[in-house]
């Protein structure tokens, strides 16, 4: 038994050494995380807030509702210049694929995107804005629509199924 212990001794001490190393790494990680988060201006607070809560101060709750439309309506509206499609997803996803003619006004980059698109959004020929995001479950389209409704813009609809429904339906037919 003692010889067995003797044989395993180097292994146990090696494993102990590795685990001590892990402990050191965890402590360093905690320190790096804490320092990194406190030093940056957009650091995370201790308690998580949903995107809606983060924008909550800006959007009156009543402004969050909008009429929802499906793929059939969206498809028939694509060629109409008086209708503007707004992609509320982040720029990366927009670049990977979007509805024909849609502009990117993401929830995440709202301020900059809004300034960039100001001219298009306030075009007097526009009659309808259709906002969409990734799918049925995403809330970015509602949040962006809520933010846009604070401006004197045309009527606004939400494309409920979003990009997922569009892809599933086969895109333009």
């Amino acid at each position, binding site marked *: 038994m003692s010889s067995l212990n003797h044989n395993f001794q180097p292994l146990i001490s090696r494993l102990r050494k*590795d685990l001590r190393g892990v402990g050191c*790494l965890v402590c360093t990680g905690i320190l*790096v995380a*804490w320092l990194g988060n406190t030093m940056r201006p957009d650091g995370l607070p201790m*308690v998580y807030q949903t995107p809606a809560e983060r924008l909550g101060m800006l959007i009156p709750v009543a402004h969050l509702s909008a009429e929802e439309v499906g793929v059939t309506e969206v498809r028939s509206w694509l060629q109409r210049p008086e209708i503007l499609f707004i992609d509320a997803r982040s720029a990366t996803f927009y670049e990977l694929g979007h509805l024909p003619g849609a502009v990117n006004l993401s929830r995440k980059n709202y301020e900059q995107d809004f300034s960039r698109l100001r001219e298009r959004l306030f075009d007097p020929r526009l009659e309808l804005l259709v906002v969409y995001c990734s799918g049925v479950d995403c809330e970015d389209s509602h949040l962006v629509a809520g933010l846009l409704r604070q401006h004197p813009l045309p009527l606004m609809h939400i494309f409920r199924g979003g990009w997922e429904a569009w892809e599933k339906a086969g895109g333009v037919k």
Partner: protein
Amino acid sequence: VIELILKWLLAALFLYAGIIKWWEPWDFADAVAAFHLLPPLGINLVAMMVPAFEICSGLCLVMPRWFRAGCLLLLLLVGTVSVPLLWAGLQGWKIDCGCFGSSWLSFSNPWLALGRNVVLMVLLGWLYRRDWRKNISI
């Protein structure tokens, strides 16, 4: 040579994963929240800690003295992240762990993300075992 290349590749991969999450902490916090497994206090803690652990462990992979500790922590980290992915897969949810931001390595199908994690764990385990044996034989 393969071992060395793999070490550097994995180090680069985990550094990349840590940096993009650290760069967009809110996005990662939203990805963690989507699993509905943690309370609001835990979500931001995870979003703060995971990128830091990945960066520190990623660096350790290219430091011979710290290699095995880095490997073990990454195995633990990837293994832990795989649990909510398995849960999401069983629930039929289409969400990603946000582990690689919105890059080509992120999958909205949890089973694919889980597969990616299994590959990473196998590679880390193999490297750990090789380093362990090499040092024992010395």
